């Protein structure tokens, strides 16, 4: 019965944590509505979350697009529909892989950094210091991160979509000798605004998840350097899980 108990504890803890994250999100929204917003802080976080994530996001996207083209080509070739590779790459990238992969990468990169930074601030009492200086830590620390995540994830996803489609095009046309005109036609014919904007909406939600979860984990760090490590890992794990779970529901709702 021990494992059953453990399962129960884990589940309750997970739900509780998600609830806490959600409460933190609401508080952050509340604080973000109170001027003044520290634009310099927001810019700084946008650079951290967005600009610095571009190389890894692009590399991931281009390789994903290329592999997607290669793999789907194998399948479509079997019934002479090679040009549909374009459709598959475009739809997969915009609807699913662009936002999700970008989010997972940003969660691993910027989310972890956020949790580590805030965790360190927590254990070195910098967050308390903020409070004592009448600067609300949520407003000062979380709001800029949340806004940066919300804004930069969609922008990264746009790059991811474009580069992924370009990578798929390159492989299909240059390597697999698919007719480029037909390929592009198939890409644009079947792609709709809803696919692109739906994907960006997903990215927006993922940005919120990454920022909020990472800040939550960082804020609730306990126990020195080890705690910071735990918070970092926890932030990546929890945000990845929430990204994947919410992706399902977003897909169900959006498309």
């Amino acid at each position, binding site marked *: 019965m021990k494992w059953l108990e453990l399962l129960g504890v884990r589940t309750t803890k997970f739900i509780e944590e998600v609830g806490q994250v959600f409460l933190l999100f609401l508080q952050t929204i509340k604080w973000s509505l109170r001027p003044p917003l520290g634009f310099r802080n927001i810019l700084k976080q946008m650079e951290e979350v967005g600009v610095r994530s571009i190389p890894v996001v692009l590399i991931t996207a281009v390789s994903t697009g290329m592999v997607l083209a290669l793999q789907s080509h194998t399948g479509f070739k079997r019934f002479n529909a090679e040009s549909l590779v374009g459709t598959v790459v475009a739809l997969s990238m915009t609807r699913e892989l662009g936002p999700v992969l970008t989010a997972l990468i940003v969660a691993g990169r910027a989310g972890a950094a956020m949790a580590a*930074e805030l965790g*360190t*601030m927590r254990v*070195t*009492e*910098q967050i*308390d*210091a903020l*409070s*004592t*200086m*009448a*600067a*609300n830590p949520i407003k000062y620390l979380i709001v800029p991160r949340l806004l940066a995540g919300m804004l930069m994830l969609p922008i990264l996803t746009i790059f991811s979509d474009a580069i992924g489609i370009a990578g798929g095009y390159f492989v299909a046309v240059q390597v697999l000798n698919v007719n480029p005109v037909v390929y592009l036609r198939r890409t644009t014919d079947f792609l709709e605004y809803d696919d692109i904007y739906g994907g960006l909406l997903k990215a927006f939600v993922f940005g919120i998840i990454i920022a909020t979860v990472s800040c939550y984990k960082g804020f609730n760090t306990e126990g020195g350097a080890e705690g910071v490590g735990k918070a970092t890992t926890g932030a990546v794990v929890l945000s990845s899980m929430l990204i994947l779970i919410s992706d399902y529901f977003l897909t169900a709702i959006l498309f």
Partner: protein
Amino acid sequence: MGEPMIQLIDLYKSFGDNRVLQGVNLTIERGETMVIIGGSGSGKSVILKHIIGLMKPDRGKVIVVGQDLSTLRERALDELRKKFGMLFQYAALFDSLMVWENVGFSLRQQTHLNDREIKQAAIEKLSMVGLRGVEDRMPADLSGGMKKRVGLARAIAMEPEILLYDEPTTGLDPIMADAINELILEMKRRLQVTGAAITHDMTSAYKIADRIAMLYQGKIQAVGTPDEIKNSSNPIVHQFVTGSSIGPIKTV
């Protein structure tokens, strides 16, 4: 003297099963420096965090300048906090900000001064704690003692009425510790602030305190002037101030 600045009334606080505060009663009067002594983990820091509203008591009241903290909303609490300055144990400087930005942090938050003015003010405060030419450095480049000074400069940036010191001399060599003690005395002299410090460093306590309170087992065991505490007949106080491992205080 005589006007109560901070009143702790029957304070209870537990963390899980750990009952840290079990009915703390303490009054700190305007202008005096109260030093709370006690063993490691005895809850001194908890008292300090209650005073500045970082923690809320399970039971009891914290009254600062006549205002019950537990009844204050966030914004009023922030208003009240502007009367405070706090020096953290490890200074708690913002790693991502330069020294002058750390010192001028409150100025940027609370005032409409521009960067240049803030920096000017920061340099002035830094000179008050005996630091020159460090304003453009990052906190990570500073030694422990310098961090404490920068922390002190930041604490006094908004010219607070109350200064809180969390273990001001811990982790410093005796000479640097004495310098910090001198600074605390100077702040009190120059800024007329009410002070509350926690420490287990008795040298520091004797030097900066107007009164000393001994916390043990969640309660204030004795309050008195340094001389009274030094000569206390209370076996707990006596054991602590003489630094003996033999006595009623259990070391484990």
